[in-house]
């Protein structure tokens, strides 16, 4: 059996997936808080053929007996590259950027009631609280609320001026009069997720940790640890850009496309060989 056709067409699929991943990175080069994905290949398991009838006849044989044949390549691991993206100054008071580790916690409006999503995208705006007129939530463009250290939505009163400090604490100052600035009980809750493999991408640049991926006996707090105030540095008036490096992505795109081409040619070679075999009897 001529398996080279299947080896090469399988490789085409794997390279197509790499090109897809790279294209997604390039498309998100301007997405706030986007983390690039890194695709890698892995060899498919080989099988052994016993092509030696009599091993003592195999003069000059260097490898162990038998012929081990491989079947090409497939997509191995797609890693999330958690490196910091570049800072972009916006001057908006509710644009937040985490320097270093950590994720914002966002409560969802459409998802399950207690589902918490994690994101690096810090572009929030004030959104009126429907349950309590005169107070506001910090919300994403898609409607998710920024949560505090206890998992409750952050609530801001319209009578106060708000400043978010670099340790995540919220400073309030009454608009009327010359009152002293006070600290809110709430602060921006930042969680540290050491292992980005626990995260599942749910779109909108947000991630969740599925409860079923947590090993028995462990709980969510072991994997998404609430950071204490001051552990994560928050810059207000900045957004974290995407960490996609266009140079690298374009180089990856070029090499993958070339290898894709070579494998496509190998498919056509395999086809030619089958054609030649078919032409024995004309």
């Amino acid at each position, binding site marked *: 059996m001529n398996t080279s056709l299947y080896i090469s067409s399988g490789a085409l699929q794997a390279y197509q997936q790499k090109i897809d991943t790279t294209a997604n990175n390039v498309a998100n080069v301007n997405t706030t808080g986007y983390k690039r994905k890194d695709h890698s290949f*892995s060899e498919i398991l080989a099988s052994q053929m016993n092509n030696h009838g009599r091993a003592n006849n195999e003069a000059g044989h260097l490898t162990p007996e038998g012929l081990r044949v491989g079947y090409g390549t497939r997509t191995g*691991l797609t890693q999330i590259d958690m490196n910091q993206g570049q800072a972009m100054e916006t001057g908006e008071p509710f644009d937040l950027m985490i320097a270093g580790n950590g994720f914002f916690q966002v409560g969802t409006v459409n998802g399950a009631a207690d589902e918490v999503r994690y994101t690096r995208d810090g572009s929030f705006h004030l959104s009126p609280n429907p349950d309590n007129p005169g107070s506001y939530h910090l919300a994403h463009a898609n409607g998710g609320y920024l949560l505090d250290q206890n998992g409750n939505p952050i609530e801001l009163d319209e009578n106060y001026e708000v400043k978010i400090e670099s340790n995540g604490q919220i400073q309030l100052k009454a608009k009327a009069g010359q009152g002293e600035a006070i600290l809110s009980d709430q602060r921006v809750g930042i969680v540290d997720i050491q292992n980005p493999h626990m995260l599942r991408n749910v779109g909108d640049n947000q991630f969740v940790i599925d409860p079923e991926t947590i090993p028995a006996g462990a709980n969510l707090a072991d994997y998404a640890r609430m950071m204490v105030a001051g552990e994560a540095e928050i810059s207000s008036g900045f957004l974290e850009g995407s960490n996609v490096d266009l140079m690298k992505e374009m180089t990856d795109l070029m090499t993958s496309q070339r290898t894709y081409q070579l494998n496509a040619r190998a498919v056509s070679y395999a086809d030619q060989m089958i054609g030649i075999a078919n032409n024995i009897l004309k």
Partner: protein
Amino acid sequence: MLRGLYSAASGMFTMERKQEALSDNLANAQSPGYKKDETVLRAFPNLLIQRIRDFDQAGNGSVSGVPQLPQSMTMGELSNGVYAQERIPSFEQGTLVQTDGTFDVAIDDQAIPAQEVNGRDTKPAAFFAVQLPDGTVGYTRNGKWDLDGNGNLVTSEGYRVLGANGEPIQVTSSIRREDLQIDGNGRLLANGNETIGQIGVAIAENPLELSRLGGNVYQAENPLAFMQEENNPGVSLQQGFLEQSNVDSAKTMTDMMMAIRSYEANQKVISVYDTSLDQLNSVGRMNG
């Protein structure tokens, strides 16, 4: 009897085998740590052909006109075609490419001196040891690693990376990923200088004795010894680098063209035999 017909058929079959190996190499041109396979072709052992039926049907006395011989006479050697004898992996060093990944580790074993094994100069090769699903130990050059959900260091195939003590390396969640460092001797350092593990690097004196399991992994009949730090034969580990596949795609394409042409030539030989057989069939045909 047209013996060459079968020789030509074996040639076609062997070229398919060779093409498969080349396709496999080309498909893995970007698999980290992949080692290319080279197909070795070998002629089937030659056979001696002998004259038989030098005697009459009763088995006594010679057929008239045939020289009298004490035993059957050798006529000469007959070649029976070719077969793909083995696929020899080439353990040449692949290119090291900088990736800056915390868990990207490349082995540089160029400095290990070659030594003579079975009268042949052999270059030992260094490998990472991994735990296979059945509990046995495999050897790989794939240095694309990550931590799984339990904090085990795993390769991109999902095999656990073994330490020099033969146990899987586990990184507790209290250690920050970006604080992990791997030095040239394979020590896993956290928080500056605290050693939390030693990556197991195994040296194969004769890497050709390993058998390819696939998934970038080789297996050894007898477990290989782990390198000890005090007698490092010349291996250094590079964190933040990946060893690329050592496949040369230009050469692979050229070899594929050669294989396909050789396949075609064998097909032509079969066609020639086919013509001869056709002519034989037309002997004595009426109204020809």
